[in-house]
């Protein structure tokens, strides 16, 4: 029998969460004052969890590696947040949001969790508005919506191209209120180095003060990991430079199972790689696909001429363009889900139709939208026969009002004006659906250790839909965890403060210090980035947008060899007792070098294609992903037993009682 107990409540799906809330244990307000909770990470999930737990009365300590909680990488989310408000009256409902999310995830997520997410989604918008989050509004003063990929309704709330920053500032303001009350102690510029278990329960962490280098012990009755995803295992991604897997990986090594590591999202619309020394990739929000049309030249000779700089995209006639998403997927067109759009771009570029110097780019064109908006604007302002220049001027203004900051960012980075020439885009690593395995209560396989937001695995299956990450982060933090954690802590009301003077803390601290020392005891040949870049290349080439058995096996060997070389030859400069960015990076890359191998193993053992996981051996005749529900309708939860390659597989079978399993089609 599997050791995985998902703890999904009984009953019809729309009643499960209410029933569960009614039946679980509560901690009375007086007792909450005697209970401490550590929250690692202060993005949307961690920030909202910390604020809510503190408000309920628990004593909360937050940890983030940034200099302020407000800088966590949720801040960079652009496009929006989904909610089944149905303000547009276009047929939306909790069920439809649930259905779209399960289908979008290619039927590899847990029904009950996703339904709960849809159910609380409306509450998130109410909550954020009450906190003063300035969402976009219509002239009548009500909230505006737009549409995202993989759905047929407009349910996305947004704040121009920086919804993430506005929502995070909302969560941060809620944290500030609790910091001011003394209920949250925030430890900024601190990194969690290890999880401490006492009697098998998570009872604290070892953290490093990134300014002084001091190794600190912090105890609590429960530990919440909201430390984000592991996209930086690819080196180049849209993640922040500091985003890392350390907290989750340390927990994994202490007994938390890691689920579906190979489910990674490659986002279709990012600015293409420009050079060897590039450090990071920049996303162009999916919201642009509402109005932008994606194309490559229909004829190879045109693509070649463009690559050689002899032809401009604006010189290619309409009939010589291949709007390949509209051609292949007429029902969803440019708004197919991310995995589908990314693969389609790769297919065209691999076939020789790519458009930048490297051949690794496609166009995202706003010409049609500019003309459409321009005509509409001219018409509504009384100009029934506008001239072309006027249409373009008005149209550009309308597009600027919608996407101005994104266009500006594109221009700063590429030195090209996207109002006049189409944007060039290419897929890039963006989000990880995999993460720590959690049950319905968001608890990992370690009692008292919870995972929220991108750090867990539960809601997005094999592919996440746009504008759902913000929704999940805030749902977990504001509305799920604060309930479910009480069920566990109710047993701890008599425990009293956890001492940090125990043998367990002593040992954990020593392990952390030894590990740092090991990083200095090498031959000191190659900088940390040398290894990170090499790892990233292996991951992108062999575990990226399409995978096969041979290359995955090679990847496992190469990563193992690289890891061994790292521990022999990495060069870490400076001292451990000061601010030291090289040392910080070294610790993070060391963990990526282990995770990468498990990632490849997971991809190798999943002999099917689903969502972001595309195995070349398993595809339909027209190149679509071929799922195998009979043999792979499960979550792969890996138990650490020594080496990443020896990890032990546990399967959580996924039951679909409310949605019929179908081949996912957007045609």
């Amino acid at each position, binding site marked *: 029998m599997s050791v995985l107990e998902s703890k999904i409540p009984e009953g019809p799906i729309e009643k499960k969460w209410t029933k569960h809330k009614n039946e679980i244990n509560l901690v009375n307000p007086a007792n909450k004052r005697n209970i401490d909770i550590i929250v690692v990470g202060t993005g949307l999930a961690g920030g909202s969890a910390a604020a809510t737990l503190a408000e309920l009365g628990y004593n909360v300590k937050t940890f983030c590696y940034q200099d302020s909680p407000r800088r966590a*990488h949720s801040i960079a989310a652009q496009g929006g947040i989904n909610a089944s408000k149905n303000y547009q009256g276009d047929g939306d409902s909790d069920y439809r949001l649930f259905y779209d999310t399960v289908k979008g995830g290619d039927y590899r997520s847990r029904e009950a969790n996703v339904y709960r997410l849809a159910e609380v989604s409306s509450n998130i918008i109410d909550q954020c508005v009450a*906190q003063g989050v300035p969402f976009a509004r*219509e002239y009548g003063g009500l909230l505006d919506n737009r549409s995202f990929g993989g759905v047929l309704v407009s349910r996305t709330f947004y*704040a121009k191209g920086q919804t993430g920053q*506005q929502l995070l500032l909302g969560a941060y303001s809620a944290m500030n209120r609790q910091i001011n009350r003394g209920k949250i102690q925030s430890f900024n510029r601190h990194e969690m180095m290890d999880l401490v278990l006492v009697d098998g329960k998570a009872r604290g962490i070892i953290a490093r003060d990134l300014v002084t280098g001091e190794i600190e012990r912090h105890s609590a009755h429960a530990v919440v990991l909201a430390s984000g995803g592991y996209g930086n295992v690819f080196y180049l991604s849209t993640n922040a*430079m500091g985003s890392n897997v350390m907290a989750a990986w340390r927990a994994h090594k202490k007994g938390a199972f890691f689920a579906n590591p190979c489910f990674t999202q490659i986002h279709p619309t990012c600015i293409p790689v420009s050079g060897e*020394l590039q450090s990071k990739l920049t996303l162009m929000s999916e919201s642009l696909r509402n109005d932008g049309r994606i194309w490559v030249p229909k004829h190879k000779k045109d693509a070649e001429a463009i690559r050689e700089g002899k032809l401009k995209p604006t010189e290619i006639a309409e009939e010589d363009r291949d709007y390949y998403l509209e051609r292949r997927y007429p029902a969803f067109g440019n708004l197919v889900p991310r995995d589908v759009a990314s693969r389609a771009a790769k297919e065209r570029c691999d076939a020789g139709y790519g458009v930048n110097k490297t051949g690794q780019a496609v166009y995202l064109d706003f010409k049609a939208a500019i003309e459409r908006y321009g005509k509409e604007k001219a018409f509504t302002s009384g100009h029934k026969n506008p001239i072309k220049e006027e249409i373009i001027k008005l149209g550009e203004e309308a597009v600027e009002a919608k996407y101005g900051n994104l266009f500006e960012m594109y221009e700063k980075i590429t030195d090209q004006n996207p109002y006049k020439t189409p944007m060039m885009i290419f897929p890039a690593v963006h989000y990880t659906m995999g993460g720590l395995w959690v049950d319905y209560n968001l608890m990992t396989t370690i009692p008292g250790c919870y995972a929220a937001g991108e750090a867990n695995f539960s809601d997005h299956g094999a592919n996440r839909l746009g504008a759902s990450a913000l929704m999940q982060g805030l749902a977990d933090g504001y509305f799920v965890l604060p309930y479910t954690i009480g069920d566990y802590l109710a047993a701890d009301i008599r425990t009293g403060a956890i001492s940090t003077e125990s043998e367990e803390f002593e040992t954990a601290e020593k392990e952390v210090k030894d590990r740092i020392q090991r990083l200095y005891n090498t031959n000191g040949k190659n*900088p940390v980035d040398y290894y990170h870049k090499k790892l990233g290349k292996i991951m992108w080439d062999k575990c990226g947008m399409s995978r096969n058995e041979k290359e995955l096996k090679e990847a496992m060997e190469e990563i193992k060899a690289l890891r061994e070389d790292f521990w022999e030859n990495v060069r870490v400069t400076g001292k451990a007792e000061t601010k030291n960015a090289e040392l910080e990076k070294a610790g993070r890359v060391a963990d990526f070098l282990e995770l990468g191998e498990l990632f490849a193993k997971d991809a190798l053992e999943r002999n099917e294609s689903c969502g972001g996981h595309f195995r070349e051996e398993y595809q339909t005749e027209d190149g679509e992903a071929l799922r195998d529900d009979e043999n792979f309708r499960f979550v792969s939860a890996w138990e650490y037993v020594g080496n990443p390659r020896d990890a032990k597989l546990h399967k959580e079978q996924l039951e679909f009682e409310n949605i019929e399993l179908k081949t996912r089609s957007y045609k």
Partner: protein
Amino acid sequence: MKLKLKVWRQEDAQDKGGFQNYDVDGIDGDMSFLEMMDVLNNNLVNEGIDPVEFDHDCREGICGSCSLQINGEPHGPDRRITTCQLHMRKFKDGDEIVIEPFRATAFPVIKDLVIDRSAFDRIQHAGGYISVNTSGNTQDANSIPIEKQDADDSFYAATCIGCGACVAACKNASAMLFTSAKVSQFALLPQGEVEAHERVINMVNQMDAEGFGNCTNTGACYVECPKGISLENIARLNREYLSASVFS
């Protein structure tokens, strides 16, 4: 291109610090300024010298981590961007570039180019929030219609990324643009009205306590602000403060 860099090095808050000269080569116009710094640091590590510490994270102009005074200007010569979005095509072969931390008493240097901006956090602890429970039992979001203009102005105030360029640009190292943006976001919304008086007083008091200078309306903050936070916010803060002082 080849560049001559003059970089501020400082061991810790106690150290006096000083400039060091470094040459970098092979810099391409499409690289960002921070990628140029990566090249410098990679060279230094290879030579066994401690690399230059600087704050950075998202590298897409939104987290507000990166700072740097470049040739005397916060975030460098370009406008309406952070240092991570500054590209090397703004410089030419052979240029000398002076790189320093943001300078202000309230932003002490931690190491090299890394500064401590926690004073900004403390200003927000003092009142940068609306006292609403995070229970989700609030009224429906659309039951509070807000005029589009007010919602937009509130949003523009809220686009502040808290990088500190306004303070670094100001000859008095004043934090008025930052604080006024934070006050304005809530002052422009009906949800923020209830606590308006208390909020502005507490945040301004905290700002003063942190050792920021006074505002003398020179507007350098607005010029250097990567997000173009408007000076109208400062006017609004002054009105809010006055009204709070008179009526509370």
